[in-house]
């Protein structure tokens, strides 16, 4: 009963280390000590490597972060609110971009997304015409097609942001013809066409055209014009010439800007024109030069060039009156400080002076 149930077996080696040799040379002792010293050196080396390096502190410097700070801006999709199924065909989800929400309705739904074009790719949309818009400071075109609920009629809207009032009035003036009946409605200046309308508001210029001539399209066009009143107002104050001509009670519709090639002269730029009521074809104009000297220079150049087609009726130090050699219309131009102003295509001398005086008065009030 005393015996263990398992047979006894050795697990580990029973032998102690022992050595049989009888001699250890002095070299061996010395080299052993040397090896021990070397080992101690290795340990010391490892220990000496210790520093206060803490990888947890690895980080990107704030400067590097600031360098790219805010460089990526993502478009934030608007929340899609809950709608009872069947109430819509989903047109509400379409992002109208710059267009006011009132552009789309149950009756007129966006057919496509809003497409935008910038100066680089404007030619894709209106090849051939793009130059005209670019000349007037074009910045962006937003293009939207509306479709009637019965899917028969379509209206395409081109909304150009010309970047400035000067640009939008300029391109508007190029579009209107003497026959167009320009109307003013709030901030909108526009005239209707048989299939839609053309107009401007602030820095925007727009063309609305339906796919046919119909009452509903005409109605929608009017409503669109109204809704464009909601377009953002220009950030900059209205330009000087525009303000001045408005103060002379000239309709916004009759004010236009010519950026380049004024009077067909390549040196004349940035003139504002306004048609006065009851003065027939006559147009007042005003230009602000950089300085009185450059204004005088410009005047001298215009007078010089005008002599080929006009004959001088009267000339003083700061006023010149011309008459066209064949058309017999009058052209008057005057200078006051850095302003050049006058009237073109007036029927008689008296009207010329009358218009000139009007501008002169308004200028001195400023």
């Amino acid at each position, binding site marked *: 009963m005393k015996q263990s149930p398992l047979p006894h077996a050795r697990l580990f080696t029973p032998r102690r280390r022992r050595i049989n040799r009888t001699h250890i040379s002095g070299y061996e002792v010395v080299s052993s000590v040397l090896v021990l010293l070397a080992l101690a050196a290795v340990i010391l080396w490892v220990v000496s490597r210790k520093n206060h390096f*803490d990888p*947890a*502190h690895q*980080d990107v410097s*704030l400067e590097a*972060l*600031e360098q790219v*700070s*805010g460089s990526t801006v993502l478009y934030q999709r608007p929340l899609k609110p809950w709608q009872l199924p069947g109430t819509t065909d989903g047109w509400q989800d379409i992002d109208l971009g710059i267009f006011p929400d009132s552009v789309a309705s149950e009756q007129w739904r966006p057919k496509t997304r809003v497409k935008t074009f910038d100066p680089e790719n404007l030619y894709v949309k209106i090849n051939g015409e793009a130059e005209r818009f670019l000349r007037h400071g074009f910045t962006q075109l937003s293009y939207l097609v509306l479709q009637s609920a019965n899917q028969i009629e379509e209206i395409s809207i081109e909304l150009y942001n010309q970047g400035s009032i000067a640009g939008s009035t300029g391109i508007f003036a190029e579009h209107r013809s003497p026959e167009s009946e320009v109307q003013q409605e709030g901030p909108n200046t526009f005239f209707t066409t048989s299939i839609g309308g053309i107009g401007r508001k602030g820095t925007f210029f727009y063309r609305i055209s339906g796919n046919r001539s119909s009452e509903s399209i005409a109605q929608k066009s009017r409503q669109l014009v109204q809704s464009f009143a909601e377009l953002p107002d220009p950030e900059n104050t209205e330009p000087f010439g525009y303000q001045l001509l408005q103060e002379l009670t000239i309709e916004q519709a009759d004010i236009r800007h010519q950026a380049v090639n004024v009077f067909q002269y390549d040196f004349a730029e940035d003139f504002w024109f306004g048609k006065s009521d009851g003065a027939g074809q006559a147009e007042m104009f005003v230009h602000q030069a950089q300085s009185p000297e450059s204004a005088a220079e410009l005047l001298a150049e215009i007078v010089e060039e005008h002599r080929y087609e006009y004959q001088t009726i009267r000339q003083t130090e700061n006023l010149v009156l011309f008459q066209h050699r064949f058309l017999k219309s009058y052209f008057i131009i005057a200078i006051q400080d850095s302003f050049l102003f006058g009237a073109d295509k007036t029927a008689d001398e008296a009207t010329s002076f009358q218009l000139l005086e009007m501008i002169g008065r308004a200028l001195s009030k400023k």
Partner: protein
Amino acid sequence: MPSPFNRREFLKRIALASTICGGAGYLAWAPEEYPFSLKDVTGLRSRPEPRQFTLPDYRVATAPGMMEIGIGRDMTTEGRLTKALEPIGGLSRFVQPGDVVLLKPNVAFDRAPELGATTSPELLEVLIRRLLIDCRAKEVRVTDNPIESPADCFAKTGIKAAVERAGGRVLLPDGNAFRPLSTPDAELIKSWPCFYRPLIGVTKVIGVAPVKDHNLSGASMGIKNWYGLLGGQRNQFHQDIHTIIADLSIMIRPTLTILDGSRILMRNGPTGGDPAYVKPWDVIVAGTDQVAMDGWAFVNLLQRDASTLPHYLFLAEEKGGGKIDPAGRIQESA
């Protein structure tokens, strides 16, 4: 020939056999309620028993004439904190000598303090110094359960260094630091793994939270800060974040809550990551009603419209976590 097996031996063997069988039989077949019974009819007895714990109420008694929320504006962290604590009676009203104080900053991400995703280390340092020197607290512990690696978060946010400079202790979480916390009044986290080890012996708890934008819940401020005490599958919380945050407002009743308005993360929360998202400011809010503080900070620090107050604040008010309207309870130090 004598039998090798006499009667005496026989009886001894029988007695031994019946004792073993009887004992084993008792253990195996005695009904569950009998002493020493090992019987398990349903198979449920062998389940490990959850070792739940509950949190005490860490609040201190209200004092008459004291405000509940103080706002301090100053150029220095020190000044801000002093001014914020002034209307509510100073730090010594909340922490007595000998207290073991647990600070819960937000150290959720491994971001530099300038990025506004975490509590600022300057504030913690000042606060710990005050607690240890002015209030003579026995010990100040600082802990959080970050999403990223804890060591890295505490290092990169500068909090580890700040706490150690000030004489506090950083307790990093590990798998054994958690135990299920029982919160019977909560809706979704009646029993949820919560820090246990860092809370042993703690007598006062102070939340020190940054004010941050939060993509899902709207804003992460004082209440949401307690999220960092929990462990377990926190990623389920996002399925009903508002109820969870409302539950947090009653899960722990802190002694004091401090909102750190020195760097406010306005966008891309809760992670931030771009200095452009951070608005440096000069405010510290201290108080005892987290719900009112969060409501105030949402409007005044994050500068959001009061009509878009996070839904969880209303839920928290309903559950008794506090009152949103701070009227009459809030004061800004001159």
